[in-house]
């Protein structure tokens, strides 16, 4: 699988991003760049705008000011090319509950199926990897919350995209699942991939982590107490 990442350089740059919702500014003059081997965690309290920013980066929301560049070209101009190079995993996992994990996975990887020639065997193995071995033929409506999330995560193993954009991927995973996913992210970064992630979970075992803090702190005054509380608690 490693060779798939060759020639797949990542270069996503945000310049002077500005976004407001309902007349409240979520972030402004935000600039950063993501390249191969980067791991960026968007952090911040509830309602800070993490999901919003992530969807901007994924190209799903064009409701912003500022610039988003993929290899120095505006994202919208090269969107289909960009789309083939990045994997977006949102809050909802696009799982059809009447279908089995393997049928769901087949659809999920279909945008890459032509270019990467993904075989069914690979899909079965990927399901095995996320510990759904034995559940391949069970309709997803009979799986628990965490098991359903895993179906979506199985994609990480087969899709040849160098840039991953993940929104709260640790939701509903148990400790083993969290550990597996952390390792998977770590490996991806080591292999020169790039990852942007939002998570309230502290990514512990990953050295190259960078954090981007989005703050609501100014907006809600009662918040400042909470911060100092938290710091006291931590110290």
């Amino acid at each position: 699988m490693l060779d798939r990442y060759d020639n797949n350089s990542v270069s996503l740059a945000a310049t002077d991003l500005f976004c407001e919702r309902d007349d409240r500014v979520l972030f402004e003059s935000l600039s950063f760049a993501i390249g191969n081997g980067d791991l960026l965690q968007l952090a911040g309290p509830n309602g800070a705008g993490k999901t919003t920013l992530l969807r901007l980066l994924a190209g799903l929301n064009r409701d912003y000011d500022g610039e988003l560049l993929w290899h120095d070209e505006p994202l919208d101009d090269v969107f289909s090319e960009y789309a083939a190079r990045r994997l977006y995993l949102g809050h909802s996992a696009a799982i059809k509950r009447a279908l089995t994990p393997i049928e769901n996975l087949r659809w999920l990887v279909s945008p890459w199926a032509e270019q990467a020639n993904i075989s069914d065997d690979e899909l079965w193995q990927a399901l095995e990897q996320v510990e759904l071995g034995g559940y391949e033929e069970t309709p997803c409506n009979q799986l628990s919350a965490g098991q359903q999330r895993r179906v979506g995560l199985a994609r990480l193993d087969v899709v040849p995209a160098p840039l991953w954009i993940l929104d709260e991927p640790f939701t509903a995973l148990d400790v083993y699942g969290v550990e597996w996913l952390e390792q998977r992210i770590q490996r991806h970064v080591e292999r020169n991939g790039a990852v942007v992630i939002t998570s309230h979970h502290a990514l512990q075992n990953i050295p190259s982590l960078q954090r981007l803090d989005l703050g609501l702190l100014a907006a809600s005054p009662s918040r400042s107490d909470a911060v100092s509380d938290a710091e006291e608690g931590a110290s």
Partner: protein
Amino acid sequence: MSLVAATIKRDLLLAARNPGEWLNPLMFFLMVVALFPLAVDPDPKFLARIAGGVIWVAALLATLLSLDALYKSDVEDGTLEQWLASGESLYLLALAKALVHWLCSGLPLTLMAPVLGVMMALPQDAYWAMILSLLVGTPVLSLLGSVGAALTAGVRSGGLLLSLLILPMYVPVLIFAASAVYHAGIGMDYNGQIGFLGAMLALAACLTPFAAAAALKLNLSR
């Protein structure tokens, strides 16, 4: 396999796994037609006069109701998000979804219609007109309806709203189709009406997917 093909395949698989998806509109069609003799008058002569209109109104309502689910689950479970994220053309998606919808609603309705014709004492001469008009008209209903379905996919009780948006647009189809059946019943020519329906189909197939694609994008800025 491209995403479009995969989506068609998956949707047909879903319909096969859950036969209610295409059986329910069929049953609804039958029941609505059966309501009229009960509510109005079971006299065959009288029924013959309203048969074409009633069958078409029922077909229209059945299509309308089945449209509600067209995009709803896709929006809710994130399928649509993945579509947009894939950068694939939404035009094709909208067309593919309308096609699958027609296969699961319009086509079975058309095949079922002769039985209803018998029950409603439809004049002998009108059968072909009815089948033809349904065959050409129901795809238009699916295509037009898919725009409404896309617009209301993110709305909670979208079913009714959808009806409100789409029913007015269905009126031309209804008028031409019902008139074709009626004219056939009294032994007149109905090529003109079918021709009109055909033209509408061509137009709808070209244009509505654009509108549906645009509407789908709206659902994402939630």
